[in-house]
């Protein structure tokens, strides 16, 4: 990642959660100098006046999540980007992860009018093409080297080889970075207003959220709106029609407990299905570094081949395998809590759900292959 990109990403993904904190919204509190009483008074004044203002989370519109065709989707373009950029929630259904389909289409439209800069994908393609050209030259150069070893090099060949060597050196020293286009905002401003508007309305992409993500955003942060009560959402996520049929090892509850655990520790948690695990933990987020840990929630019985295969896959992509054992409450305790959850009204859903999740305990364990020949010294 170039420096320019890094700074861009820092700004784009400044917030670790799609949640507006008051100091960002109203300006941060003044510096406090312990030996200076005036700074104390000023700080107090600012602090109190901040608390007199309305909470930003209550006045700003929350992203809207809909439940459609059995999945959780966000359709509004701004909401989509907000949820993805701030904490990396969801996946654009026409994109690899970040919902970029719309902007790529826009790009295409603009470049057909001949006034566009390269998008990130185009930059990658251009770089790869250049790399291929380099490899072609290198192959030719190596063929000549072989001829030299075999002692059948002609005078022409020697000249060609020298020319190739210079070319290759030039390739190697060249700054291979290709400047990408300006960020989306500036592009939008520059683009024809009408064209972009037309695109906006015809936007086909939506952001799809996992059950754990929706539940975290709605239940723990209350930073999205969804057209159902917490209890209904809980039932939908857990895949049950009545709360009473939830078992202690309900898959959703286990996953949510683990998801919440790592989210509350500031990790960026994404699905780990690509590597046979439940979750992947990113330190800051997708563009900053590769995922560091793969989280596997241990089922009640796990076979040796399963665990061995998993460890191989995960170490093959240089990640750390963390086995998470979730200790569950017994059925009786859970049933009691679920009963309370149903009986008490809407206002108590969150607290009663928390009482349930608190019954689960998380144990972590690092699992790694160990090779005698490589640990001796």
């Amino acid at each position, binding site marked *: 990642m170039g420096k320019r990109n890094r700074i861009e990403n820092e700004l784009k993904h400044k917030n670790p959660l799609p949640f507006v904190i008051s100091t960002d919204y109203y300006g941060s509190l003044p510096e406090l100098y312990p030996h200076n009483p005036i700074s104390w008074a000023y700080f107090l004044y600012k602090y109190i006046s901040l608390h007199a203002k309305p909470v930003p989370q209550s006045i700003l519109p929350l992203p809207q999540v809909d439940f459609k065709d059995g999945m959780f989707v966000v359709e509004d373009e701004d909401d989509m980007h907000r949820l993805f950029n701030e904490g990396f929630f969801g996946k654009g259904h026409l994109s690899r992860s970040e919902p970029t389909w719309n902007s790529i289409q826009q790009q295409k439209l603009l470049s057909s009018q001949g006034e566009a800069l390269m998008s990130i994908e185009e930059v990658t393609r251009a770089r790869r093409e250049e790399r291929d050209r380099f490899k072609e030259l290198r192959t030719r150069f190596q063929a000549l080297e072989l001829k030299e070893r075999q002692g059948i090099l002609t005078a022409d060949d020697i000249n060609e080889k020298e020319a190739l060597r210079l070319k290759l050196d030039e390739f190697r020293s060249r700054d291979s970075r290709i400047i990408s286009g300006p960020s989306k905002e500036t592009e939008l401003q520059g683009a024809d207003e009408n064209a972009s508007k037309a695109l906006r309305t015809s936007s086909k992409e939506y952001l799809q959220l996992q059950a754990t993500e929706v539940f975290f955003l709605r239940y723990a942060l209350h930073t999205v709106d969804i057209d159902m009560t917490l209890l209904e959402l809980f039932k939908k996520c857990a895949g049950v029609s009545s709360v009473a049929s939830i078992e202690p090892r309900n898959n959703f509850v286990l996953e949510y*407990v683990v998801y919440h655990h790592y989210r509350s520790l500031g990790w960026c948690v994404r699905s780990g299905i690509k590597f046979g695990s439940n979750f992947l933990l990113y330190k800051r987020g997708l563009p900053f570094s590769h995922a560091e840990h793969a989280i596997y929630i241990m089922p009640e019985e796990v076979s040796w081949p399963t665990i061995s295969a998993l460890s191989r896959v995960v170490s093959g992509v240089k990640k750390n395998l963390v086995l998470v054992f979730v200790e569950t409450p017994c059925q009786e305790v859970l049933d009691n809590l679920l009963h309370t959850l149903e009986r008490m009204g809407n206002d108590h859903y969150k607290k009663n759900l928390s009482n349930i999740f608190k019954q689960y305990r998380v144990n972590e364990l*690092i699992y790694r292959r160990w090779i005698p020949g490589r640990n001796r010294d």
Partner: protein
Amino acid sequence: MENPDDVIDVRLDNDDEVEDEVQDWKILKNSRNSEIIPKRGEKDFEPDGTNVQAKLIDDSREAMFEALETPRGYFSKNRLTAVWMKDEKKALVLHPRGNYFKDMGAAAKIGNNRHGVWLNEIETVYLCERGSLLVYLGNSSFVEYLESDATDFDYQGELMALTLSHLYALAFCESPDLLDQYHVYALLKRNGYLIQRYTPKEEKEIQQSSSPTLTHNITNVLAKSYSVLKQLFFNIAPCIIKQHLLAFYISSRYESLWTDFYYQKHHILSYTSLFRQLRLIPSYSASNCHLQSAENTSPYQISYNIWKPMPNFSKKNPPKPDFQVCIVNTNKISFPKVEDIRCLLSNAEISDSDYERPGETKNTKAKGKSTAQTQTKKQMREQRRKDRFNKLSEYSQKKTIYLRKRDDMLKHGTSGKSVLLAVLQDGVLNFMNLSEVDFTFRDSSRIKLDNILPKRPHEIMWHGAIES
């Protein structure tokens, strides 16, 4: 020919493939070839019409044959004999010599001042299979000799020499587990490790208090009660008070915190505090779990303590083991449950050696050798990294160390406790390392991080502030 740096590179990159590497026997010959296989990135694997590669392979093969042709054997002066004693199920070595007894065997004193070494079943079979030990089957005349004052004994004439298979039958007939243990033992031993049977801590203490006199007992009781009282006053009481206070505080906050519109009604001033408020799910690890199982009946137990090869190893006062291994046979038991792992880890020693990045330590060692050579790309990168680090302010340096330490702890365990599982399936052996980790950084791991940069929210991986 072999670049030390490349070796490290592979080591860092992939644990999996290097073990399948083909040995290059030419190292034995210490020969220098003028032709060199092209470096990485410019390799030609197909036959290129020249005989460079074929010649290199031929040379290497030749070197192997040469190495294998040297006659193998031992000097009769160094012959090591043992006698298998059926009653003891051990082998007695009366004249121990050679390098084998650094970690093997237990001192034996028999009859009138006769000294020797007892080898247990596994050690006997290992040395015998290795071709380092001749084993005879003990009989009554040998027992008589042991009790007498005679100096010499005619092993060859009086006793029957055991074949390896006979010894296997004698040694491993008791329990099939012994054979599993032997597989693990032999593999590790051949890799150069020092190995001893693991004895649980309590047993060790009993062994040490060898002369239980009355005064000794009293002081013992006093010391014990003192330590219990001390524990009560200084550890448990504050712990309980703290927990109760904390519990009270948490419960009073909890009521309001976990209501649905909390975040619509309260100002949140930083993401750090937001993350702290989100903490809900209790997490445990073996060392900070307060519900230890009273009985230790788990089928998963540590079998061996293992040390990396070291010159001054003492059997009597061994240092802390580098690894501890628990042997499991997949045909008999399944993957351990959380209780089993907790039990295993609670018995494990805490290794206090910091995890070192292999790249850094190796490089300093290899430097002497490679100064003459041109620097590899990797070394250059390393050097640049170091220069950049030295230019940083003191705080930034500390922070770099801190962040690296935190990452390392999450990758290799936060408490330093780990156990190896030797997983056996019909003779196929695999090792797994289980390390205790606590993503919330409590107790000892918190102290370790506080030592570098105190009072930071260690457990919160990213709290949103862009720091300059």
